[in-house]
């Protein structure tokens, strides 16, 4: 039986070749693909998240890990055709209207998808109505919004109000973040969650879903 902890390590180090080889070996040895994902790939990504939050890792570390994870998942895809990749929950995420900063939002989206969330990324400069339409259409468990400017933070409230008006607010948890955003601000506008960085967004989203 292949040692799945080595797979987690390969993801943590962003070693794509090794991650693919170890995934193949684990699958060939009969390991359950869901275990390979949870104990290998997601465990590795969780470790990257912690190191990113603590300041030990940087954007490229996260990017390399995400790429390794994606390649390893490709190996497992045929085995998961019937059941699909197991997900913890569905997230729609985007940077709010007027805001052209997407690096941080991409980090959050990557950590979430690398940790088992199904993520729909709407990109940047997303109009209020688009968020509402996507909540209606995709029926996510969580709506994530990012803003990097104090001038665009107020858009969070606009979206929350529009969700209320559309009768959608109770169907979705709202999490917000971005450099100028604080927990106090998130409480103030009635968001359900806040995370300071990409690594912390994962446990926060799990908490919101009680998982």
């Amino acid at each position, binding site marked *: 039986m292949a040692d799945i902890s080595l797979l987690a390590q390969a993801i943590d180090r962003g070693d794509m070749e090794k991650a693919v080889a170890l995934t193949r070996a684990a699958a060939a040895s009969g390991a359950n693909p869901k275990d390979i994902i949870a104990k290998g790939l997601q465990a590795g990504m969780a470790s990257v998240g912690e190191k990113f939050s603590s300041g030990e890792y940087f954007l490229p570390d996260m990017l390399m890990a995400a790429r390794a994870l994606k390649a390893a998942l490709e190996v497992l895809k045929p085995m998961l055709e019937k059941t699909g990749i197991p997900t913890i929950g569905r997230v729609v995420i985007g940077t709010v209207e007027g805001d052209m900063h997407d690096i941080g939002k991409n980090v959050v989206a990557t950590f979430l998808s690398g940790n088992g969330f199904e993520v729909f990324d709407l990109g940047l400069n997303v109009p209020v109505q688009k968020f509402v339409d996507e909540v209606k259409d995709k029926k996510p468990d969580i709506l994530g919004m990012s803003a990097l400017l*104090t001038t665009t933070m107020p858009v969070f409230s606009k979206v929350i109000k529009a969700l209320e008006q559309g009768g959608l607010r109770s169907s979705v948890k709202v999490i917000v973040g971005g450099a100028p955003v604080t927990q106090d601000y998130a409480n103030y506008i009635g968001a359900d969650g806040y995370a300071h960085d990409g690594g912390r967004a994962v446990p926060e989203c799990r908490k919101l879903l009680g998982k």
Partner: protein
Amino acid sequence: MALTPKQQILAAARGQKLDKLPFGARIDVWYNYHSAHGTLPDKYKGWSQVDILRDQGAGVEVRFFAVTREEYRDMEVVETNDPPYITTEYRTPVGTVAKKEVFDTSEGPWIKYEMEKLFKSEKDYPVIKYVMEHTGAVANFEPYYKLREEVGEDGMVMTAAGGLWSPVQRVMREIIGYEQFFYELADRPARVEEMIEAVKDLERRKLRVGIECDLEIFNICANWSDDIQTPVFRKYFIPWFQEVSEFLHARGRLVMAHTDGEMRRLNRMFRETGIDIAEAITPAPQTLVSMKEFREQLGDGATIWGGIPSILFEPMYSDADFDAYIKNMFKEMAPGYRFIVGMGDNVPFDGDINRVGRVVELIDKYGRLPIQV
């Protein structure tokens, strides 16, 4: 005779001792928004931002892009304008590359963002290299001189010889995009380095033209964030900064970086760059670094310009919070030399413009140098 605001800023930038903190304030985000929406306060309707800053009693900091312009040869550059998008195609004998930008200033900030980058895949390397090699630099001094005349002795027009973002930053941010940059650097480092070298050569050409303009301070880089740049800072950024700083210092000029991002893990390396001024310094609560830490980590060789994070101008903070923050910042920066009070990096559109005047009053009361704690 008392020094003018411009002389004060330049003196602090050169490390000379003053008897009061200089102040160079930047308000273009606030100003552009309210001008575009017709919502400038009654008193300021029809005023220029320079006059508003004068009225507030503050030294002026305004931005001008660059004192050179790019000029292309042996290629066709076709621009298609479909507001708010501009698509630019570079048709060269070795192939075509294109970028799609959005440009708008009506919401306050100038928004210029490459929705589609010039680089899309490996086949674009030789074309982009060709574009860089066949781009020249020509003087664009007149608009800068005009703005400088408008500001006069009341402050500074901050500008650059060429690209606002050093060659590596231009490749990362504008040409390839941050994320793809790191993948390319991992997969094809030699090609990325070749591209950086081509952009460096172009920037050297701009510097040789720009040096003929008699500006005192050259801005050579902007918009770092330590999550992104730290791992490549020593290898790709510092040697360039050292080269440019040496070139400019030898000609009696000062060197500045617009350091408005999270600087936590970059501050100590900043000391190796040769850069004189770290401008738009943005401390906690907007980033994780306090002003005291900035002072310690950047060392006494660098002048700090900034210190007031833009969120402090927001209504979320009361006047009392604002005053307490400013007074504490002065203490943290004691004795206060090599420090120019300024914004990190602007007054937001819903900020209170009169807080600029409050800073002036607080400097008068508490900003005498050396600051006694």
